[in-house]
């Protein structure tokens, strides 16, 4: 989520002119979509879903919502530029650091004080970050998650990552305190203030201890863990600060002026954490990843629009989010005005390989690679996450995802995807955080769209992403916009977990639809991870199981990428092999030989095929061979 001003910038540009200029990448909103017209409510909102079943929903626990306003504070509506609100009979503000007294205001500024934010996973636990701290749930039984730890430690955004017994947390606000206190820091310059990356020891999960707090100049809006395949004794954190630079008197070396060669703008913080001694964590580099050949530190997008009818993109002086894929040595940075690709084979010294702009992007917000690191999905957080940007009149390429292929280590634009159901004025909605669903043979992502709900989409064909499942509730309130909805929606070991800003933790399972078969879901369920931080991607492999083969077969049948006779033969052979208990029983040899023979035929078929189907034919052949080998 981005902050106040950015939500509003660009609003006044007349949407009519924009729509005309926007490529018709996606069909218009379907007026009959079941997500339209859902009843509003915090706990009793109307629901529409397809291909997703909500199996559990846990409201925010005590300590993490305002008992007077459990849903959060309303956001004021957007008004036309010249309209002046009536000056109210004002209660005179009180002097000298005293809070104005009286009843809480009728409307407020969005009430993000207790907002849920990002998720991290380990074993049978999910950790949900919050602007006020974090909560840990036991998810051994996904239908009955159990809250096992509530930790108060304010400072926002509270994005969390996990590595072994260490939990990392982003803090950016000036109210953040070194000692996790809720009372803020009154002094302008104070050693009690904390803005940066906290590290907790969660060996005792119910009672985490803070072991390190690495102060940074701009605080940490988000962060990314980076493992070094060559050195497991250390882990790195890429801290992305997006807010104001603090004074040098508070933290030595901080410089707010953009034209100073030592400016704290135009960089990220690379923090090194010795695993055995996290208290010695420190910043080891602030790489100038936006610099140009002439040594201009802010050498990328200078801010502004891209011609008539195009979006106004922010100037690039920060990354909002960086997603790393250490196994392929790449990182994708969503960096305000640019999407960038970084070589991180030396994690301390990331080097820029490419930078792109997009005429529809207001603010490059987050990035996700596909499984083999050949594509990146970038999201655009037009409106900052607190504004309604999925209304029927909003362009379908604005506030959307852009799919890029990585060709010769360069980013090549292919297509846009936006959650396709029109939302109301009362629902903040724009592309936000998501992760891949490990269906073999396809690129599928689940993503949170704030109050636009959860959307699952396929981008196997980068030029034609399409939706395959969704879950959506009505707005939090029928008349006011209260910031809420899904901050993140991530796949973890067979389920989808949604961090709902106001409503808490939601857990879903996928159900089959015309776009996704049970075999494909079951094949995805076979992929297990011990730990998941969505901003650090790892390679995925699928076991040589029959259901994986059947998933490929379903896909090939769907695209007519396999001859019907061959498909039948593979299906029959898989049925026979599944009836075997061992490879030594009578007749087993013939069944296994047949699998191998079919694999050979599929390889031949693959030579005459192309694209995704060619890959599927080869993967199917490989899976059949592996299945046979396991039984031999």
């Amino acid at each position, binding site marked *: 989520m981005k902050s106040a*001003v950015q939500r509003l910038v660009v609003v006044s540009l007349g949407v009519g002119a924009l729509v005309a200029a926007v490529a018709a990448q996606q069909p218009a909103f379907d007026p009959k979509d079941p997500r339209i017209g859902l009843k509003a409510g915090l706990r009793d909102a109307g629901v529409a879903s397809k291909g997703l079943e909500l199996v559990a929903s846990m409201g925010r626990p005590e300590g993490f919502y305002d008992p007077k306003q459990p849903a959060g504070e309303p956001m004021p509506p957007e008004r036309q530029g010249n309209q002046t609100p009536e000056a109210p009979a004002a209660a005179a*503000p009180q002097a000298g650091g005293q809070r104005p007294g009286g009843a809480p205001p009728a409307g*407020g500024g969005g009430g993000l004080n207790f907002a849920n934010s990002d998720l991290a996973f380990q074993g049978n636990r999910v950790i949900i970050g919050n602007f006020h701290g974090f909560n840990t749930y036991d998810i051994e039984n996904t239908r009955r998650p159990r809250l096992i730890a509530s930790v108060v*430690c304010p400072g926002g955004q509270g994005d969390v990552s996990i590595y072994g017994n260490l939990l990392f947390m982003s803090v950016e606000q000036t109210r953040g305190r070194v000692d996790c206190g809720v*009372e803020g820091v009154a002094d302008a310059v104070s050693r009690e203030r904390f803005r940066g990356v906290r590290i907790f020891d969660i060996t005792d999960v119910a009672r985490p201890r803070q072991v390190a707090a690495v102060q940074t100049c701009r605080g940490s809006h988000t962060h990314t863990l980076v493992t070094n395949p060559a050195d497991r004794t250390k882990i790195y954190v890429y801290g992305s600060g997006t807010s104001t630079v603090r004074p040098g008197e508070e933290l030595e070396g901080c410089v707010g*002026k953009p034209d100073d060669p030592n400016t704290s703008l135009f960089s990220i913080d690379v923090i090194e954490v010795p695993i055995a001694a996290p208290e010695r964590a420190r910043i080891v580099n602030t790489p100038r990843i936006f610099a140009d050949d002439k040594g201009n530190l802010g050498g990328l997008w200078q801010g502004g629009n891209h011609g008539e009818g195009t979006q106004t993109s922010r100037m690039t002086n920060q990354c909002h989010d960086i997603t790393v894929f250490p196994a392929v040595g790449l990182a994708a940075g969503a960096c305000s005005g640019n999407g960038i690709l970084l070589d991180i084979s030396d994690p301390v010294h990331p080097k820029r390989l490419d930078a792109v702009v997009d005429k529809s992007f207001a603010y490059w917000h987050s990035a996700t690679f596909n499984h083999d690191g050949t594509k990146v999905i970038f999201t655009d957080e037009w409106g900052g996450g607190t504004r309604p940007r999925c209304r029927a009149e909003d362009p379908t390429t604005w506030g959307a995802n852009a799919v890029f292929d990585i060709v010769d280590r360069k980013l090549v634009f292919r297509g846009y995807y936006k959650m396709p159901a029109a939302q109301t004025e009362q629902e903040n909605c724009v592309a936000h955080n998501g992760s891949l669903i490990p269906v073999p043979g396809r690129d599928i992502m689940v993503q949170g769209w704030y109050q636009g709900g959860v959307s699952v989409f396929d981008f196997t064909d980068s030029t034609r992403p399409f939706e395959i499942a969704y879950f959506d509730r009505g707005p939090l309130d029928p008349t006011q916009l209260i910031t809420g909805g899904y901050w993140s929606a991530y796949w973890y070991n067979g389920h989808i977990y949604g961090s709902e800003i106001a409503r808490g933790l939601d857990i879903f399972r996928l159900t089959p639809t015309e776009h996704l078969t049970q075999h494909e879901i079951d094949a995805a369920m076979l992929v297990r991870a011990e730990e998941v931080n969505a901003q650090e991607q790892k390679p995925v492999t699928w076991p040589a199981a029959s259901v994986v083969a059947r998933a490929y077969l379903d896909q090939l049948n769907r695209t007519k990428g396999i001859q019907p006779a061959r498909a039948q033969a593979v299906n029959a052979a898989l049925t026979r092999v599944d009836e075997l208990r061992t490879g030594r029983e009578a007749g087993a040899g013939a069944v296994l030989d047949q699998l191998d023979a079919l694999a050979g035929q599929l390889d031949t078929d693959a030579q005459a095929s192309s694209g995704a189907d060619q890959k599927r034919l080869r993967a199917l052949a490989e899976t059949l061979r592996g299945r046979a080998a396991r039984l031999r």
Partner: protein
Amino acid sequence: MSRGPRSQSRCILVVLILRGKHVTSRRLAVAVAALLALPAVQAAAQEEPPPPIIKPGAPGQPSTVIEAAKATDLSKVGYTRADVEFMQGMIGHHAQAIEMVDLLKTRTASDDMRKLGQRIEISQRDEIRMMKEWLTARGQAVPDEHAHHMPGATLMPGMLTADEMAKLGAAKGVAFDRLFLELMIKHHMGAVAMVQQLFATEGAGQDGEIFAFASDVDADQAMEIRRMAIMLKELGR
């Protein structure tokens, strides 16, 4: 321990069932359907009491248990008088930037200058709207955008005097461009100084919304100053 929102929705379901006995079978069916639609989700309610709320200490210090009422006490990080005055003062400050852009529209010959003006106008208008909404929502006085024209009005840092505005209005072409850039840089530097002043004031800038807004003003104006300095250099001072 009570978990407000959830226990409420449970009660609603119970009421539905009880009422169902006394109403038509169709209503009963609806109530039952409502129940059937949600069994898994309702079952998610935690039966055991939630764990205590932990407040960690500074690095190396022990963690302690904190009561919920204390954990949610934000009374010390609300907005202050300085926050309110910052918003009130910035409205006139921004309004003057728009007046300067209005002069630009008829006095410059440069496309780059026009684009710069458009950008400034859009962002300042949006920020003015945001500030007015913030003040209104908090029951605070919303100053008139043009109050700074009143004789004897206090000008916020960086704002142009009536003489400076007149001088700018009398300039044309490249001379105008140069003067506009010089004065707008001074004007923006005033906004940056106001943000610095805000954060330098005891207790100010703690509220999440104020923090975010002031951060953005600081970043945006600093960036525009940088751009304008480059444009000024290109004009050949």
